[in-house]
């Protein structure tokens, strides 16, 4: 784990105080430039450049193998790019941090398959995810404060699971589990949320509600949604990025992207 105070002190001794945490003064939360990643000669990402603004809700689409998941891996530190730079805000170089440090800086990621703590209640799942001192001794003697309880019930409301607060998480429906996981990410108070196929396996009604949830979250958080479900994208998309063979093929409002002949050829037309 990094200790931001210490870094700040050392920098301070040199006469320039490093800003703590995320510096998004220029309105950009994520900045990828010319990222390339190869696996055994296969170019998963090819000079990919992408910029996400603060509070933006961005949808990323593309055929299988376009590099969507690899892009997420680079952002969360799971994969190191061969070349290119990835910055979180102005100052945080993502290519130098570990997965846990990146999570700590405020990037939350939801995987395709929901992973929650099945034997704990919904409330307890959120409690564990909550931003707090997570060292052993503090956790042993920790008592929930009332504002923390409020925060949890607020999140329960956001993800529409108030009724199920005391249920075991393992008993939730698939869609509810997805929501719970999103709720757990929210409890960590991330600045950027990466969501990998969040509506996979959801019923139509659940999908609809998820769309509403994302629209409500945008603004407070920045969201990047990777999805195959075009109907879903159409509902929530403001700005869409189409990936193809590891780089950006088109970018813009849904209407414009849908009518782009290049996009129709590689993706939508099929």
């Amino acid at each position, binding site marked *: *784990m990094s200790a931001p105070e210490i870094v700040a002190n050392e920098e301070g001794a040199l006469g320039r105080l490093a800003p703590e945490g995320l510096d998004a003064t220029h309105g950009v939360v994520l900045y990828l430039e010319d990222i390339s990643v190869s696996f055994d000669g296969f170019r998963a990402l090819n000079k990919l450049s992408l910029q996400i603004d603060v509070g933006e809700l961005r949808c990323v689409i593309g055929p299988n193998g376009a590099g969507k998941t690899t892009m997420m891996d680079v952002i969360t530190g799971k994969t190191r790019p061969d070349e290119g730079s990835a910055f979180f805000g102005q100052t945080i170089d993502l290519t130098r941090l570990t*997965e*846990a440090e990146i*999570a*700590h800086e405020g990037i939350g*990621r939801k995987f395709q398959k929901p*992973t*929650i*703590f*099945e*034997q*704990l209640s919904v409330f*307890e799942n959120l*409690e*564990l*995810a909550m*931003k707090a001192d*997570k*060292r*052993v001794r503090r*956790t*042993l*003697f*920790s008592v929930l404060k009332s504002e923390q309880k409020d925060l949890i019930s607020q999140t329960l409301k956001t993800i529409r699971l108030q009724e199920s607060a005391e249920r075991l998480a393992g008993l939730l429906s698939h869609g509810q589990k997805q929501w719970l996981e999103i709720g*757990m990410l929210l409890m*960590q108070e991330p600045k950027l949320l990466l969501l990998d196929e969040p509506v996979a396996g959801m019923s139509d009604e659940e999908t609809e509600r998820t769309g509403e949830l994302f629209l409500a979250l945008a603004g407070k958080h920045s969201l990047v949604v990777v999805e195959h479900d075009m109907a879903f994208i159409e509902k929530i998309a403001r700005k869409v990025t189409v990936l193809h063979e590891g780089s950006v093929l088109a970018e813009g409002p849904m209407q414009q992207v849908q009518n782009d002949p290049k996009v129709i050829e590689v993706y939508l037309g099929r």
Partner: protein
Amino acid sequence: MSRLYGTKGWVLLGIFASILFIVFPVLSLQVSDQNSFHLSQYWVTLVGKIMCYAIVAIAMDLIWGYTGILSLGHGLFFALGGYSMGMYLMRQIGREGQYQSDLPDFMVFLDWKEYPWHWWNTEHFWYAALLVVLVPGLLALVFGFFAFRSRVRGVYFSIITQALTFAAMLAFFRNAMGFGGNNGFTDFKRVLGLPITTPETRMILFAATGIVLIGTLLLARWIVTSKFGRVLTAIRDAETRVAFCGYNTVHYKIAIFTLSAVICGVAGALYVPQVGIINPSEMSPANSIEIAIWVAVGGRGTLAGAILGAGVVNGAKSFFTQAFPEYWLYALGLIFILVTLFLPRGMVGALQRQRREAAR
């Protein structure tokens, strides 16, 4: 108080405590041995011994039932606690051994002239008590640090803990270790200056074990109902997600493994003066596996189940080893298979499920 148990739980615990601390002493010490209600020494020792096992079962439940880490080396921590206390008990024999020497008989037999270095200070009870906690605790801390940091998980962890206890057993079999070789320590005469075989001393040891058992149960209950306990359960269910939430799971696993080992050590220290012997067979791999069976039979992740499992399996064991000695291992295997097939969540787990379904 209310966090640990509901009213019903406290009442049950109260009944359990009054059986241990009122019924047993009265029937054993106050009722004359002509009376058919008299409790013989046999029963006091047997129940005392089983309570030691129950303490071990609680320790096992914390690490296996709640955290999902199956340690098959817990017999080692138990034995180390036992040997630490055993050294003190050997010093308490004084010159009353066979050879009337200042040294324990086995050292005279080996023609040693003085105590080896690791017996230093063991004539003091406080020092022995310190060893009881520190030796298993430090071993678990160091072993856990390396194993968990290297991300040794699942069956691999079980195998290396099994190897650890086996290696320790082979080492303790050697006379040169200074722990009495394969005979271990026995023929104790006194503990804290009291003659060890009188009914009164036995009852004191019995009551001390009962206090530790109930104390361990409450401590474990306090832990599993804390946020720390919920992190342990979360590690069992989805460890990578816990790490993504920002918890250092290695620290959590080391902490609970060490605590579990210390509890085993204390149980071993209470066991040795009651049973009157400690030898390397306590470290045999089979013993450690048996501990896991107690917890599985009683119900993983239910502390009361661990106590119940230790009681039922060991009760059956002492019945079988007297009535049909050659069939005990078959019976144990059968119990384990039946429980796995029909009560996958153990006896207490099955009870809980029944109650939930009845409530529906």
